[in-house]
């Protein structure tokens, strides 16, 4: 037996994972995939976590995220609360955008991982799907020329169900700005990808969600979204501090006070001229209100917001047009 075999045989060992441990880890992963089915798990967010039974808002933070420029300018009244990075000042939120357009592939949908760039996804009936996103300069791959700009073709070491591997093209779209195109099916060739790259325009696309948030704390940014109906903004200086808005269609049941974990106080308030619920829990505020079309939104903010700021923010939420 050599030293490696001795290490493997006699090195520190541990019992296999219990079923409970595996189930818990799997549940956390599934929760990140689909917050609607996630069980509340405080460990998924830092600071205020999830405490609303069955809501799963905080789990959504782990599902889809974006890196977008700061989008705030106009100060609004109500400047008293603080977070870990300083006082909260609500300002007008600009509409989030994806900076590029790829014409000819139909309407894009968008996804992202928390803190990572947004990916524009162009789906095709024949599964010749295309993804477009920003990335870092590549260190590997076959050199490619994209209209005189450097690029790399990166092969995918595997196959898809239709037997053809997707292909990546990473190229310098603008100086020090690298984009990645992933092509599948008929777009999984260097020629097709280079042709597609030539079509990419610096034309922003609006990221459309079911609701828009009109006010956000100064300096905060859109950090995650899921199914166009859950939005999370966070403080980049303190990424564990965030607020989330979940929209649901009309007809969905309203949360009742007894369903809120850590509940301290429930009160009736008015938001946008309609009756609404304000819940104060140990670690968060939750505002539950109806919009003009009868649909419902639920806003959860850290307790570091003042009650007035939570209500003011709720008052700025509108159905997207």
């Amino acid at each position: 037996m050599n030293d490696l075999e001795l290490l493997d045989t006699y090195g520190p060992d541990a019992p296999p994972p219990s079923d409970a441990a595996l189930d818990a880890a799997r549940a956390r992963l599934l929760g990140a995939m689909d917050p609607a089915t996630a069980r509340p798990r405080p460990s998924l967010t830092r600071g205020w976590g999830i405490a609303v039974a069955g809501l799963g808002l905080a789990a959504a933070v782990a599902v889809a995220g974006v890196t977008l420029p700061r989008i705030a300018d106009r100060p609004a009244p109500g400047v008293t609360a603080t977070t870990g990075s300083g006082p909260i000042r609500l300002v007008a939120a600009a509409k989030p955008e994806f900076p590029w357009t790829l014409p000819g592939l139909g309407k894009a949908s968008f996804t992202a991982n928390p803190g990572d760039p947004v990916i524009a996804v162009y789906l095709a009936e024949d599964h010749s799907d295309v993804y477009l996103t920003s990335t870092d300069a590549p260190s590997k791959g076959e050199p490619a020329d994209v209209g005189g700009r450097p690029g790399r073709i990166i092969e995918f070491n595997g196959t898809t169900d239709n037997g053809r591997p997707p292909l990546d093209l990473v190229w310098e779209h603008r100086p020090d700005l690298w984009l990645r195109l992933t092509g599948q099916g008929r777009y999984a060739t260097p020629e097709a990808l280079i042709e597609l790259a030539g079509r990419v325009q610096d034309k922003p696309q609006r990221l459309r969600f079911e609701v828009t948030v009109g006010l956000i704390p100064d300096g905060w940014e859109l950090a995650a979204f899921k199914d166009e109906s859950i939005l999370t903004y966070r403080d980049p200086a303190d990424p564990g501090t965030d607020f989330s808005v979940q929209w649901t269609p009309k007809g969905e049941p309203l949360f009742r006070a007894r369903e809120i974990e850590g509940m301290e106080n429930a009160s009736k308030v008015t938001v946008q001229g309609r009756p609404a619920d304000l819940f104060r829990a140990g670690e968060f505020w939750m505002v539950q209100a109806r919009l003009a079309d009868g649909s419902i939104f639920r806003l959860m903010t850290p307790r570091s917001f003042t009650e007035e700021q939570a209500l003011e923010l709720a008052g700025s939420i509108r159905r997207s047009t």
Partner: protein
Amino acid sequence: MHTADDVLIRESVREPDRFAPLFDRHAVAIHRYLARRIGAPADDLLAETFLIAFRRRAAYQPLGLEVRSWLFGIATNVLHRHVRQEERRYRALARAVAEQPRPHADDSAEDRVDAAALRSDLAAALARLKPGDRDALLLLAYAQLSYAEIAVALEIPVGTVRSRISRARKITRAALSLPAELSPLEEEK
């Protein structure tokens, strides 16, 4: 049909549910690797490893790296925040075993049949290794990754892997009273 790991990752960018089979395939192995290094906190770190992998799935590049190796690399990075805890565990194991009687202890490692003594020596040796050296050695010994796979998983040159493993093995062999010289075959295992 058994879909390849890398295909599942690609598909999961658009359909997140496609990521779930990767957990079922690799969770036990990743947990064992974590648990051997850090003990009970492995339960939490397992979830953390797969959550990070899920969030980074769109950035996964299969160049020279199987999904299994990629996951071991993420698990190793997760462990970096717990280096002191890992080293404390090794020292505690070394002490605990060393305090037991060694009925068959001998100066020669080849003759040493006392597994407890081996465990003590190995734990003490692991505690002494530099964290980077230990990562490379344990990815080789526990996860059976090749030098090239370790290089990609840890994002370091393969030459660095070779020197780290060489350094780490020298220390563990000394702790086991094994000859210091390695055959080329052993070196490149």
